[in-house]
Every structure is written in C-alpha cells, then in structure tokens.
C-alpha cells in the first residue's frame, strides 16, 4: 500500500534520511523503533508530504506521490496522521475537530458529518465530551479525539508520530488501547513509538532505524529476541534492562 524507495532528506547540512526503503502492506502495523534523532518522524512526515523528500520515491497504491503533478492534499486525504502533541484545533469542540474535515474537505452535509463524528467519538470512548474544547480535555482524551479526527476521513492508512510521548503515564494506556483496537480491525498503521509493549504485542513488523537508515526489519519476536545489527542489539539491550 505504501512503498518508500531510496528516500533522502537534508535539513541544511544535516542528512536526516539516508536512503530509506520501506514497504507497508494493507492491514500491516509497522512499528518504527530507534534512538531519537534517527529520522523516524521525518520519515512519517515525508509519507504524507508534510516534509518534502529531496530524493527517492514514495508510492501510495502504486502511484508516485512525491511528484509535481500530485496535489499533496490528495495524498493527505488518504493517509491520516496523529501527532505527538495532538494538535487539536484549539478553537473547535471535540465533535467539531472530528467533523471539520468531513464538512470542509469532503463537503459532507452537517447532519451526516455530525452523526459520523458522534459515532467515532463513541468508538474512542468520548461520547460525553462532544462539546468540550481541547483545553478542557486531558492529554489522553485529546489524543483519542485526534485519532477519531484522523479516522473520520476514512484513510487507507494512519501514521502515528510518537502518539504517547507527550502524555502523562496514567493516560498512555487508554491511547494504546484505542490503537490496538484499531489494529485488530485491520487498519494499516505506521507507528513511531517508544512503547515496547505495543511494538511486541500489536506490531506485525518492526523496523529499526538509526542515523537515517532502516538497519533491520522483521517480526517483533525476531527483532526483540535476536536483533542482527550491532546498533539494534545495543538498542534492545538498553530498553530491556
């Protein structure tokens, strides 16, 4: 579904992505692990073109998307994104955050969008917070709203950029539960996270990134029990201590 080939990105002198290849099939949950600064977030942001790749190709269902003839909006409508800092629209209620994309981007009628929004918020367990503004919600609740917002567009895949890193420990569980449920329903997901429990139990594949490259990729059990690359071994040793 998503294929990344030979992706390079420079931020000034800084060579952040150094030839990344990645394939994500329909229904797969790929967890991208790696030390901070290894380019994981940049990789995700390249996939939905929030960051413009410098070299290489990204394909969505076989269509090359980093192409001048492709509108980034077209790509982003098919690939949802959940941010580390939630980025809920501060001036809109939880319900409006979920329905604004349906109204404005998909041109859906208000009543239909409203119904869908309520359904989605119920799915993430927030039926009682429809009218609350982001500032009135806990971090965990905000992140669940932002997952509902991404799902509202009926994306083919959802990218999660460290969805629990900005949360207080007591709220991490509720967000991971929503993500696990989503995975079990067959959603295609690419998740950058430091939650090893999630990687181990939910991922269909783990990709280990270091210094702008994917060094190895395999099933979670393979990766955690016998990492092949030296840096992957060091990383696993460190987090399993």
């Amino acid at each position, binding site marked *: 579904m998503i294929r990344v080939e030979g992706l390079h990105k420079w931020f000034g002198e800084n060579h952040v992505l150094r030839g990344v290849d990645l394939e994500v099939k329909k229904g797969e949950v790929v967890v991208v692990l790696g030390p901070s600064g290894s380019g994981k977030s940049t990789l995700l942001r390249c996939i*939905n073109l*929030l960051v413009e790749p410098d070299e290489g190709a990204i394909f969505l269902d076989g269509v090359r998307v980093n192409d001048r003839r492709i509108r*980034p*909006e*077209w790509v*982003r*409508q098919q690939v*949802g*994104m959940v*941010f580390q*800092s939630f*980025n*809920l*629209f*501060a*001036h*809109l*209620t939880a*319900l*409006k955050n979920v329905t*604004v*994309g349906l109204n*404005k*981007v998909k041109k859906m009628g208000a009543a239909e969008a409203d119904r869908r929004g309520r359904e989605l918020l119920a799915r993430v367990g927030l039926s009682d917070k*429809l*009218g609350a*503004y*982001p*500032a*009135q919600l806990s971090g965990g609740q905000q992140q669940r709203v*932002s997952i509902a*917002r*991404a799902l509202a*567009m009926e994306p083919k895949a959802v990218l999660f950029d460290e969805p629990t890193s900005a949360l207080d420990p007591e709220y991490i569980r509720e967000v991971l539960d929503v993500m696990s449920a989503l995975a079990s329903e067959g959603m295609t997901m690419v998740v950058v996270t430091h939650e090893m429990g999630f990687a181990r139990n939910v991922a269909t594949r783990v990709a280990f990134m270091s210094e702008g490259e994917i060094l190895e990729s395999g099933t979670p059990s393979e990766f955690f029990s016998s990492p092949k690359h030296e840096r992957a071994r060091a990383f696993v040793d460190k987090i399993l201590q």
Partner: protein
Amino acid sequence: MGERGRGGGAGRTGTLARVAGRSGLRVAEIALAVAATLAALQWAFRFSIFDPGFWSAFALPAQGQGLLVRGLVGTLQFTAIVIPTGLAFGFFWGWCRMTRWRVLSWPSTVIVEFLRGVPPVILVIFAYFFGTAFIPRGLDPFAGAVLIAALAVGLHTGAYQAEIFRAGFQSVPRGQVEAGQALGMSPWQVMRHVVLAQAMRLSLPPLGNEFSNVIKDTALLAAIGATELFGIGLEFNSRAVTEPGHASWLFLVWLTIAMVYFVLNFAVTRGVRVLERRVRVPGLEGAAA
C-alpha cells in the same frame, strides 16, 4: 468563526444578566458623578448646558441642518470609509509580512514602517494636494480630494492593523497548521478554517482599540476643511469668538463634541467586547484579552 458548541447560548444569557445587574447599580453612581462634575464646571466657567441660544445656534437652527448633525454625519461617513480601508490593507500587509515570499513581505514592511512613522495629519495634507490626480472625472474635485485624504487615514490605521494581524497570525502554533494540512485541507482552507479562525479571536481586543483610535483620527480631516465633528467645532468656535457675549459657548461646544466622540467610541469598544465574548473559547483567550 461562528463555529460554536451547544450550550453556549444559555451561558451567554447568564453572563448578560449578571453584567446588566452590575451596571444597573453603576448607572446611578455614574449619573451622580457626571451631574456633580457638570455643576462644578458650569459654576467655574459660567455656562449652562440648558442655554437655548447655544442649542439653536449649534444643533437645531430654525431652518436647515444643524452644524452638530452635519459634523456627526461627516464623522460617521469618514469612519465608514476608514475602517474597511484600514482592515483590508491591514489584513493584506499583515499577511504579506509573515509570508516566506520576499517580493511580498519586503515591500509591505517598508510601507508599514513608513506609514507608522509619519504623522497622519501630514499624510492627510499630502493626499489632499497630490491625490487629485486619482480623482475620477465628473466627481466634485473637493469631495474627491477629501475622499482621498480619508483613504490616507485608512492607510495609516491599516499600517497599525497590519502589526495586529501579523501578531495574530504568528500566535497560531505551527502544529495547528500541520493538523489542517494532514486532514487534506488546501492552503486556503487551512488559512480560513484554522489560522484565521484562531488569529481573529486573538486580534479582536487590539482591533477594538484601533477602531476607537480611527474614530478620533477622522478629526485630522479638519486640516483640509472636511465637514466632520472637529471641523464644525472649529467653525462654530470662530463664530462664537467674533460674536460678542458668546464666550461661554466655547466651553459648551467643545464639551458637546467631546461627549459625542466619547459616546461613539464607547459604543464601538463595547460592541467589540460583546463580539469577543461571543467567540471566546476556553484555552484561546490570548495574552491581549
């Protein structure tokens, strides 16, 4: 804007009732204070606000339109020209100044800095003398020159509003824009439904302030003989000075004009505050509110 959750209506009525209750108490206090001040002034400067000769000369002549009415209509007209002009240019320049495109941001910066650094009365005089080239054929030359001078006041306030809008735009966090983009919004949709919706809320308090300045700045058009409140004040002033026995009218005429300006400003600032309250969102009050 205008996107509000349910339940806001009930809360608003409650707030209004509270405000009305509080101000009901205050109206009596204020009326008393005003009456006392007025009595003291009348005694000190030997005039009476019930002087029938003054009111018929200034506001309600036996025939024709009173000076006061002409001045008030003029001030309202100029305000109606200056505020939209200022908003349009202010918004445009403010937006230009925060774009990445140098061809837009650089000239806007120069224009805004220039307009802010020059006394508006000089802009008015320049526009009056040198704007005549832009007057459409068929329009009365004086009316045309005054109109252009009014636009100059609009450009001046536009320069201040540009800074207000720029601050509003810049206070919208980058993540909000990215969230809009990630939903598949076009750049224009992100601008309208995310950036503007939030920036306008943050810009409202300083904008209300600037509107109040604009009303007062229309007085500068008196420098070129336009008919508005300050101008008709000057006109009546010179009449009262030359006619013997009417010295006490001087105090009355300026007091009246000051009060009219005050009422106009009060209405505008209160109006903006009501608007602010209507669009207020928890967590988006902004530092300026």
